[in-house]
């Protein structure tokens, strides 16, 4: 789960990292009020879950509350890389001396949190890593020991020594503050169950203060059971209705643009099912993983979500039972079909745990069946095409 910049910075603030005291606005009038209560020039920043806001015109300086209002009016509602801007952060403007990069990120290979720091702030760190890797200093944290002071020092001196001479005095003056920010960012990462906690840029202001100017935090969804407050921050706005409905039902669902609905158990098999549909010339309407051990009601809910999508012209149900049982899935399909009056054709393939019981349950429902995935996919593509043509003919007739 990704946090918005303003949420990330609030979290930083709670953990003792210096931030500006801006607030978030959902209307231009609110933006005006915030700017006027802050006084002086402000920055109005679009709050969206994507990068490149600046280039897209989503971040603007305003000299006062009048301009803040007019800028907010322009930014609110803007579309940035497919994300509609629903809120803006109004922060006091800051005079920047220099910019730095600091992040705690899960290193999957090392199975540890990696802390990376660089004097190249405000830019894409992946580019820095590719072009000038010597400007990035990093340390892995032993989870049993936690961050040690020497590691914060190593980052601090690593950044210092990689800076051009002209930039060194300003950073040398805040070396201890920087180490403090490192420690607090790691604390944020661990205590909030984050897999990414990034400050970019971390700046030194012209009056010599360290400040987290922009931030990005990703919370581990699996840990939300112990992060209730964070769970409540989830912003439903970026999910489609179907995605939200699926998440609430405990399903893993991603909306796509095609015509073949997919209901699969297991992420790998679900992806492979999409891949096969595409391989044979079809277009999947969604990714849908019902997860391990799904029971009938969950399967029924999954079918409801798929069939609510008008673009769906056939449904491919591909179940290979392990912890999931074929009979449960079959019961779920029947339960959904009892409630939903649909003419969308189904192709069902069930193998693995309790597959025979499942097939027996569906035997009376007169469904299309398949034995291999390739066969199932090709059948689903054909049925979708036929239904699409049938509908066109109806329209023509």
């Amino acid at each position: 789960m990704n946090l918005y910049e303003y949420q990330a910075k609030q979290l930083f603030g709670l953990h003792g990292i210096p931030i500006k005291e801006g607030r978030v606005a959902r209307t231009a009038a609110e933006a005006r009020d915030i700017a006027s209560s802050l006084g002086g020039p402000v920055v109005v920043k679009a709050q969206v879950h994507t990068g490149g806001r600046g280039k897209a015109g989503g971040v603007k300086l305003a000299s006062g509350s009048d301009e803040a209002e007019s800028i907010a009016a322009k930014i609110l509602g803007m579309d940035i890389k497919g994300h509609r801007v629903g809120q803006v952060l109004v922060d006091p403007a800051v005079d920047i001396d220099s910019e730095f990069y600091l992040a705690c990120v899960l290193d999957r290979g090392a199975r540890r949190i990696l802390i990376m720091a660089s004097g190249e702030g405000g830019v894409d760190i992946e580019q820095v890593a590719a072009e000038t890797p010597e400007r990035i200093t990093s340390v892995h944290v032993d989870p049993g020991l936690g961050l040690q002071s020497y590691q914060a020092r190593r980052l601090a001196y690593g950044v210092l020594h990689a800076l051009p001479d002209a930039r060194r005095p300003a950073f040398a003056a805040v070396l201890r503050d920087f180490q403090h920010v490192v420690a607090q960012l790691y604390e944020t990462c661990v205590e909030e169950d984050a897999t990414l906690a990034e400050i970019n840029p971390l700046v030194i202001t012209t009056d010599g203060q360290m400040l987290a100017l922009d931030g990005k935090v990703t919370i581990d969804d699996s840990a939300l059971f112990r992060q209730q407050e964070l769970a409540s921050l989830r912003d439903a706005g970026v999910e489609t209705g179907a995605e939200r409905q699926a998440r609430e039902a405990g399903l893993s669902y991603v909306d796509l643009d095609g015509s073949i609905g997919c209901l699969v158990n297991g992420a790998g098999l679900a992806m492979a099912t999409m891949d096969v549909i595409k391989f044979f010339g079809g277009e999947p309407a969604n990714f849908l993983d019902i997860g391990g051990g799904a029971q009938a009601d969950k399967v029924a809910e999954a079918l409801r979500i798929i069939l609510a999508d008008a673009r769906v012209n056939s449904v491919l149900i591909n179940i290979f039972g392990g912890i999931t049982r074929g009979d449960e899935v079959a019961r779920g399909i029947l339960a959904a079909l009892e409630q939903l009056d649909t003419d969308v054709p189904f192709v069902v393939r069930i193998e693995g745990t309790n597959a025979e019981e499942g097939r027996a349950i569906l035997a009376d429902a007169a469904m299309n069946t398949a034995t291999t995935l390739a066969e199932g996919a090709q059948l689903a593509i054909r049925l979708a095409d036929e239904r699409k043509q049938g509908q066109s003919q109806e329209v023509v007739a």
Partner: protein
Amino acid sequence: MSIYVDGTTRLLVQGITGREGTFHTGHMVEYGTNVVAGVTPGKGGQRVHGVPVYDTVAEAVAETDANCSLIYVPARFCADAVLESADAGIPLVITITEQVPVHDMIRVTTALQARGTTMIGPNCPGLISPGSAKVGIIPGSICTPGPVGLVSRSGTLTYEVLFALTTRGIGQTTAVGIGGDPVQGTKFIDVLAAFEADPATKAIVMIGEIGGSDEEAAAAYVAEHVGKPVIGFVAGQTAPAGKQMGHAGAIISGGSGTAAGKIAAFENAGISVARHPDEIAELVAERLGAG
């Protein structure tokens, strides 16, 4: 022959009295796996499918000499359960539980290194050495003994491939599901090394998916250390960037972790890459015939 589990495996099931624990213990016992003990705190003294239940792993190990543990406990108790087995001296822990917090697994994998315990998982289907031991949830009916070693990040996709192999008459030494989470106890390269060392394994199937860079690391390992034929597949070729596809680990982010990159790495390492799952068995047959 097989890797990790065989006829000498003495299995302990943590969370044996839960719904899944009981169900799959039944299947494992039926398959012939030597399930010697179960553990659920407070349920010591009960029996599940004839298997004695203990309150703690330490007691269970003292009484039954269990040497492998299988974990079905809920996610929030998972880290504790893994450490309990490791501390009781169990060298191999298979963790089926899904949605385990990443930071828990960071702590656990570090602790296991110091204890010399191997964990497979979490969020994995376990493993099976057809004909001798099934540890986890891979259906025994779709497997048969033979010369192919299989390792996979995906659960049900593994079944798909095992089913196809078995249907074609190609048996398996061991099939290992390493799980789809970002932090795994066992990685592709660990299992590849074990298959390379296992004389009975004549070819290796490796099933990857989008996200992370373990497939790339595995490809480099294959190029350098694996002499046996390797057949690969990568799920998620049509997955959109930035969207998490089920597994916490399966996400294309910042332009890395794409299926295209992984397939290229596989091909550069001399791995035969299937275009879709049904092609895998075909490629295995070819490479086995050639070898």
